[in-house]
């Protein structure tokens, strides 16, 4: 006789706000999302980041319920919502294009979700005013969207999401239509808002600085595949592959060809240089995967801030003379381009550094901050 009991894995109740399991999405023959697994704890600020066309917006749209999934499970607050309409998922979304209702005033826009839920006007009003006060748009409540600036429209769109206290907030590149200065202000405000409300947020962006500054958790995507999930610090310091290493951070990590010879658990690194002697470094504590490979060529990753003119004595830092091909003063920092390992590596010097193009100067390489990658698979060693 067949058992009527449910399998165990279905009875377990999840404490997570969002769980995405084995999600696939195909548009015709093109697979834009491949086996996506994402978790979100209550109060987390998760940022989906990746270059254009990596599938991050499609993933958000699947979570929102605006795009049907091909296979896989999405659960919100422990309930399977994979086949539910957006309206039944108790989530709110802020769109890149704001998507305000042009025929309604700001107050009507913010109160739309409450209107849909038949909240009486007398109860709606204080809620709308509270949300507006939070976003500092109390004075705009009677205006139509056409008479608002971009930043104000963005606030209204956020107010519309905030007013009914949903389980989950979705932000689809909300700042990408704003000018650079406003973007930074709004970024800070979104972060403050998250802290104040303790809301669970999924935020899509192609801007890795936005990702680093806002997230408590980052999901890096490329080509429809999750490349790495982790805290901003994990992603920045320990990128799992060359794509993540190159994508996160500005200027990005220098990824150069290097030859390694291992002797007595010490890695001797040789980097070819154009018009110069090869650069030789010594890593006393390389990762075991590098020791296992023994000798051969691989890709060495060094962030620009680990190649600097720092003169502070540090036993991790090896100072080597380098020829500065181009010098770019940027105010707070000075960037110097050094041709080495087949690329134009960027070193980050002090803003006041008195170096000139074509000059040779001592560059300190921080050996504790090196990353090694397999040149064939691109994976971190």
């Amino acid at each position: 006789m067949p058992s009527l009991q449910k399998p165990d894995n279905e009875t377990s109740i999840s404490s997570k706000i969002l769980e995405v399991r084995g999600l696939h999405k195909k548009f015709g023959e093109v697979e834009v999302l491949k086996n996506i697994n994402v978790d979100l704890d209550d109060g987390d600020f998760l940022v989906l980041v990746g270059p254009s066309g990596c599938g991050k917006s499609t993933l958000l749209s699947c979570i929102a319920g605006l795009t049907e999934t091909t296979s896989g499970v999405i659960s919100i607050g422990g309930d399977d919502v994979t086949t539910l309409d957006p309206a039944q998922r108790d989530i709110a979304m802020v769109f890149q294009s704001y998507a305000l209702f042009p025929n309604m005033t700001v107050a009507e826009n913010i109160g739309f979700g409450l209107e849909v839920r038949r909240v009486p006007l007398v109860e709606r009003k204080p809620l709308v005013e509270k949300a507006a006060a939070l976003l500092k748009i109390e004075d705009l409540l009677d205006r139509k969207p056409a008479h608002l600036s971009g930043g104000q429209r963005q606030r209204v769109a956020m107010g519309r999401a905030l007013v009914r206290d949903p389980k989950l907030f979705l932000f689809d590149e909300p700042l990408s239509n704003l000018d650079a200065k406003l973007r930074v202000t709004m970024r800070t405000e979104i972060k403050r808002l998250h802290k104040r409300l303790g809301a669970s947020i999924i935020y899509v962006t192609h801007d890795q600085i936005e990702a680093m500054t806002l997230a408590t958790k980052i999901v890096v995507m490329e080509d429809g595949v999750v490349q790495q999930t982790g805290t901003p610090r994990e992603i920045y310091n320990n990128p799992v592959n060359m794509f993540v290493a190159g994508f996160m951070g500005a200027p990005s990590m220098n990824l150069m060809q290097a030859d390694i010879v291992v002797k007595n658990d010490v890695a001797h690194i040789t980097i070819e240089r154009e018009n110069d002697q090869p650069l030789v470094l010594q890593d006393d504590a390389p990762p075991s995967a590098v020791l296992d490979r023994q000798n051969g060529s691989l890709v060495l990753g060094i962030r620009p801030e680990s190649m600097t003119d720092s003169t502070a004595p540090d036993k991790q830092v090896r100072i080597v003379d380098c020829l500065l091909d181009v010098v770019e003063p940027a105010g707070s920092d000075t960037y110097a381009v050094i041709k080495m390992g087949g690329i134009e590596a960027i070193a980050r010097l002090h803003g006041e550094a008195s170096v000139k193009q074509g000059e040779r100067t001592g560059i300190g390489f921080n050996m504790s901050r090196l990353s090694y990658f397999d040149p064939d698979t691109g994976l971190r060693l």
Partner: protein
Amino acid sequence: MNRSIKYSIFLYATAVLVTLFTLLPLVWIFLMSISSPHDLTKAPLEWIPSEFDFSRYGRLVDLDNGSGERFLSALRNSLMTAGGATFIALLVAVPAAYAFSRRNASMALLFAFLATIMMPPITYILPLYDIFSQFGMLNSTTTLIIVYSAMLLPFATWLMKSNIDVLPVEVEHAAFMEGASTLFTLRRVVLPLARPAIAATAILSFLVAWDEFFYALIFTNDLTAKTLSVAIADFSAGRVTDYGVVAAVGVLATLPPAFLAICFQKFIVSGLVAGSVKG
């Protein structure tokens, strides 16, 4: 704006030409309606009548003696059929257009719809006549409303669909995310944005139904159902034809659609979507 004088002259000359081209027949009809029969039959033709005679208009709205009953009942029938058919066509076309535009309804279906109006009306006349006579529905306003609705629907759906296509879809998505049903979204978000399209579709549909002649000619035979387009011909019948009366009926017949167009003019303004999405 810095236009050269030559270009400006060209522009105004063209505008005047187009205006004359469209308005002259109307002006001539109006002049005919107030000319005496004697002036109208003179050779060579007198463009400006020797006297202005508005008596025909008086007779057309005089119920007691004159042709008031004939004219006014035809006007009533025309208003009811054209108005009723336009209303029904829009009522069905808007949701249908939404389904075609947003819900991936088969385009083959829409083109099949459109194919029905590409056939000449005469192919439908016999079967329709047969059906309506079996139901005893000939010579009735309701019958004309049914026929006209069917005639207007494919075109109205097509027109509405192409207008809904260009509305920003994110705005609807935002409404769904806020928990709105499709019907609520349609009523509260899509319809207000599509108002110019609805007004344009309504005017065009009304005009088509208002000017329709063939079905009305075949399906109606007396004052209870005859529409203006058919009734105009009646005024020319008889032993003596007064072209002035026909012209007067023609002038009056242009007024309701013109009035409708003026009323709806304010809806047909661009920029309703302004402010909803960043371009």
